[in-house]
């Protein structure tokens, strides 16, 4: 028994070191963001003598970060709303309604899950160009919805499969149409699943750079992550401002993580236990 306890402490040391290695990069970046340029050049490791919020203000105002931030908020909000609506509709139909070809459809959607964006990006850009959707909010929203819808449907289907069929039957007997069952019963019942899937989708869309780089070529339409990639060039000699811009882009994600950690983990693991 004492042997196992000792073994536990022996692995605890590398685990603590790894935890430090996980946290330190963000601590370092935050500290750099709070320094003046002079302080950074003289000593990049010491704690900043005071908090210099002006770097944050400078990053926010000077290279259009505020505009990019707004673009990201609009696109992510619309994408997630659409994903949840379409995903829950389809998930409910696949899990709880009987109709011919339902399993074939489900398999088709599952197959779409395994098509990576890199494989379809060239033709997709052409399709978006031909329909005039390139470089527009709806175009990017559609691209995100197409990218993350199979995953959303998959999770919503497996969630609705756990809802007892009696609930649907009872609601039908009470005089609800199928749409009524969806809107009044299934949608409210699915709130925990919708929250998990919604948070995860919001993170995917917010963090994406490739899709938005391809779909939003003009500089004023950039999303925040694409904005971050252009920061380095702008501030190659002003690292504290660069670090501030990175923090601005990271803080919303960190806040979401702090409050919704459990929901994120639930979404990530929902597919795993089913294999």
């Amino acid at each position, binding site marked *: 028994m004492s042997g196992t306890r000792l073994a536990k402490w022996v692995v605890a040391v590398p685990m603590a070191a790894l935890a430090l290695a996980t946290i330190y*990069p963000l601590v370092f970046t935050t500290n750099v963001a709070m320094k003046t340029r002079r302080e950074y050049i003289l000593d990049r490791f010491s704690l900043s003598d005071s908090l210099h919020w002006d770097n944050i203000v400078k990053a926010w105002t000077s290279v259009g970060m505020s505009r990019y931030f707004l673009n990201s908020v609009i696109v992510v909000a619309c994408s997630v709303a659409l994903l949840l609506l379409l995903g829950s509709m*389809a998930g409910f139909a*696949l899990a709880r309604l009987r109709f011919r070809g339902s399993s074939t459809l489900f398999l088709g959607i599952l197959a779409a899950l395994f098509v990576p964006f890199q494989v379809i990006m060239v033709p997709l850009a052409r399709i978006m160009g031909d329909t005039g959707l390139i470089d527009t909010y709806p175009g990017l929203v559609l691209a995100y919805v197409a990218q993350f819808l199979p995953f959303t449907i998959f999770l919503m289907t497996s969630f609705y499969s756990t809802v007892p069929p009696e609930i649907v039957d009872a609601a039908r007997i009470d005089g609800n149409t199928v749409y009524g069952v969806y809107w009044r019963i299934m949608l409210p019942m699915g709130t925990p699943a919708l929250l998990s899937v919604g948070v995860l989708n919001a993170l995917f869309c917010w963090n994406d750079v490739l899709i938005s780089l391809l779909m939003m070529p003009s500089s004023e339409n950039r999303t925040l*992550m694409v904005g971050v990639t252009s920061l380095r060039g702008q501030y190659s000699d002003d690292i504290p401002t660069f670090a501030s811009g990175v923090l601005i882009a990271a803080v919303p994600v960190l806040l979401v993580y702090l409050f919704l950690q459990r929901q994120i983990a639930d979404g990530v693991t929902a597919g*795993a236990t089913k294999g």
Partner: protein
Amino acid sequence: MTGRSPSPVGPASAGPTGGATITAPPRRPQPARPSPPRNRRGPGAERLAPFVLLAPAVLIIVVLRLWPLLLGVNFSFTGDGDRNGMWVGLANYLTLLDDPLFRTALRNVGLLVLLLPVAVAIPGLLATFIYLKVPGNRFYRAVYFFPAVLSPVIVGAIFNLLLAYDGPLNAALGAVGLGPVDWLGDPDVAIFAVVGVHIWATFGMALVVFLAGFSTLDPSLLDAAKVDGATLPQTIRHVIIPSLSRTIQFVFVTTMIGMLTSMFGLLFVMTGGGPEGSTYLPEYYIWVQQGQFNQPALASAASTALFLIMLVVGLAQIAVLRRAGKEE
């Protein structure tokens, strides 16, 4: 049952009960007969309901995911520039094989496959320790998972600072007497640096998946192992690995897919494919051919090649792991 009784359809379900059989038959057709005209609209619309609910999703998936896949394969057999739209057969694929950048990209895929067991073993071991309740396990779980929610762009930007020649990592190496390493400037080192950062950023995701797998593990197996006096390595080998074979399989496949398709942000920010093209991966090659050199047909050929690689790697992994699972 109680929920059903107030509903108008109630009488029909009351049919089988002995005493009601006489009164039920005349009643049954009564509500049924006036309803057909009404019901016809009802069930007709109702029968369409699944398709109405699914239509928007299916339309989007077919038009914006499956159709482009076919379009891209077809596209890869046509020419670029002057020969735009002309059938060129396998010319693009031959160009790819001749291109040193694409060959480097393929070589790096091979490297990723070799590093894959490391990327799976680290979160697997950590999950085991957390499951066995190392002191502070909850804290570790939360801390390890957090980089997984950060964008690759943010991670890449942060590590640009950390891996700089005069940055913290080289300072730490200097403190223990090791020379500075040009992490992102040395062609022999850069790809390992980028993959290392990718593993740093994603092992928390796999860790959480492993922990979900552990939650399905039968604790009595572990107790039995403890009673039999099994050591930790023995327990891992004979109890944990066989019980979690499904989860391990899932993590292998998703980690490989992640390495092949979600390092773009890191490459874009950290190296831009350099130095000397040493950090190219197929996905980055596709982006460069499409975005910078305006060679969509060649990019499509690379896309198709990437898809085939993923298919082969995925299927091979499933086959190997399935056989390994059976032998245990």
